[in-house]
């Protein structure tokens, strides 16, 4: 881990993830990064030269390209039933083009 980041850095990072952090939460993360940084040193210290990243536990193939046929269909009403604002079968959002 490199240098410890300040709370403002984490607030900016959160904003890019489409949420906000309070001043106290950002300060908490900055403090937690100190512990995390020490834990990550344990990770970084392990020699992984020539080791491939493991994405899933098993190598046995379980995925395949299925036939291009319609399957497990839901109705348009069902597809929209959980959307907070719907009009004429569309999800309503504020005007995007000003």
């Amino acid at each position, binding site marked *: 881990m490199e240098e410890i980041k300040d709370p403002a850095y*984490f607030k900016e*990072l*959160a*904003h*890019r*993830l*489409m*949420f*906000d*952090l309070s001043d106290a*939460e950002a300060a*908490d*993360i900055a403090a*937690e990064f100190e*512990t*995390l940084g*020490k*834990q*990550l040193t*344990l*990770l*970084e*210290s*392990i020699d*992984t030269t020539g*080791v*491939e*990243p*493991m*994405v*899933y*536990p*098993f190598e*046995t193939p*379980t*995925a*395949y390209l*299925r036939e291009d046929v319609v399957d*497990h269909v*839901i109705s348009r009403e*069902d*597809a929209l*039933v*959980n*959307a*907070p*604002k719907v009009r004429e079968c569309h*999800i309503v*959002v*504020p005007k*995007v083009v000003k």
Partner: protein
Amino acid sequence: MATMKELKETTTVRQRVEEALAKAHASQPQLNAVVTFVDVEEQLTGLNEIADGPFYGMPIALKDNVCTQGIRTTASSKILDNYIPVYNAHIVDKLKAAGAIVIAKASMDELAMGGTNLTAATGPVYNPYDHSRMAGGSSGGSAALVAAGVVPFAIGSDTGDSVRKPASFCGVLGMKPTYGRISRYGIIPYSSSLDHVGYFTRSALDAAEALKVLAGRDDRDMTSSYEPVPDYAAALSSDVTGRKVAIFKNVIDALGNPQVKAMFEKTVEALKDRGAIVEEVSLREDLLKAILPAYYLIANCEATANHSNLDGIRFGVQQPGDSMEEIMIQSRTKGFGSLIRKRFVIGSYGLFVENQEKLFRQAQRVRRLIVENVAEMMKDYDILIAPASSDVAPKLDDHSRDELSDGYLIAENHMVIGNFTGYPSCTVPMGMLNGLPVGLNMTAKAWDEQSLFDFAAAMEEITGMKDATAEVME
């Protein structure tokens, strides 16, 4: 209380379902384990067309990250407070086809991202044995409902130890089968390479019967396996003569509580007395200490990506705003708890282009090294054993842990190995300390759930804790 098998033999369907519902309501003030109570009448009527079996007319609970058609599914997060799925998870279809009656959706840590069940939108779940202590998480509501004798079976999910840790704190059997054994279609995800469906029971036989119903290939979860599903219950045997058991020595050395160590040693002697061959094994210490940081990175990086769809636009609770961006930011800020937002920040940090190689990819490489070393360590043994927790359930306000100590890095987090390897792993009651349960964790090789059920049956005979329940109602 009674196990599923005993309930079937001694009660009518309506009796056991109504009794479970009554207990669920009566225990809610003490446990706070239920998010949503489910209407049972339609389910009871539907039983007429279902063949008899272990789940026939059996009251069960589902963790609230399991999608249930027409029934609110919140994953204990405010952002999903109004979410009503239009489809069932694969396991819900399977359980209903077997006659199970869902009586409740159970509380959990928000989006399954925690180990305490203190972060649920509906507040903490309280331990049935001591209401000033935690039930553990993230599947704490499910564990508490089984431990309190409300239901004999509940679904959970396990990404780090989220079935096996609350099972230890609540004194029930918590099973996490092999990765791919049970379809995850319709389970609100946390970390796709680590998430498993698991469950809680109060007997080894019930656990064996349940896996036969839940397991099997599902094309809608492309990580689910084609491995055949054996009849575990028919093959169940508590005779462990000649079976080979490996003691996870590093974990024992890292235990802080001598009473837990003594309880474990007594268990080992009992297994030896029953003819098991017990030996000690160790894992490289540097790899063991890297388990938690590797897990933290992989899980949070995957979670950040998985939960980017929770924005209040297509579903979920929407906050007002003058632009799409403002709606999303407000909805996600108010919809996610503090801990979740912090974890997303850490996950995102690990995925930055400049950090991805040295953090996320390094974690995945270390994962492979851990998996290879565990496979080598276990190759001559049927199961690997260690206490599931280094102590009894902590108090609700206990913040005393030292996150850089061996006791925390190793003794409290070793069960993540079951998620890294995908190996089946299960916690069973090992004994009681001052009136509180402590569990034994057992891990077998891939697809060998049978060994876990067999040793669970042996442990029931050793501890006498089959069907252990806590009295929570006054």
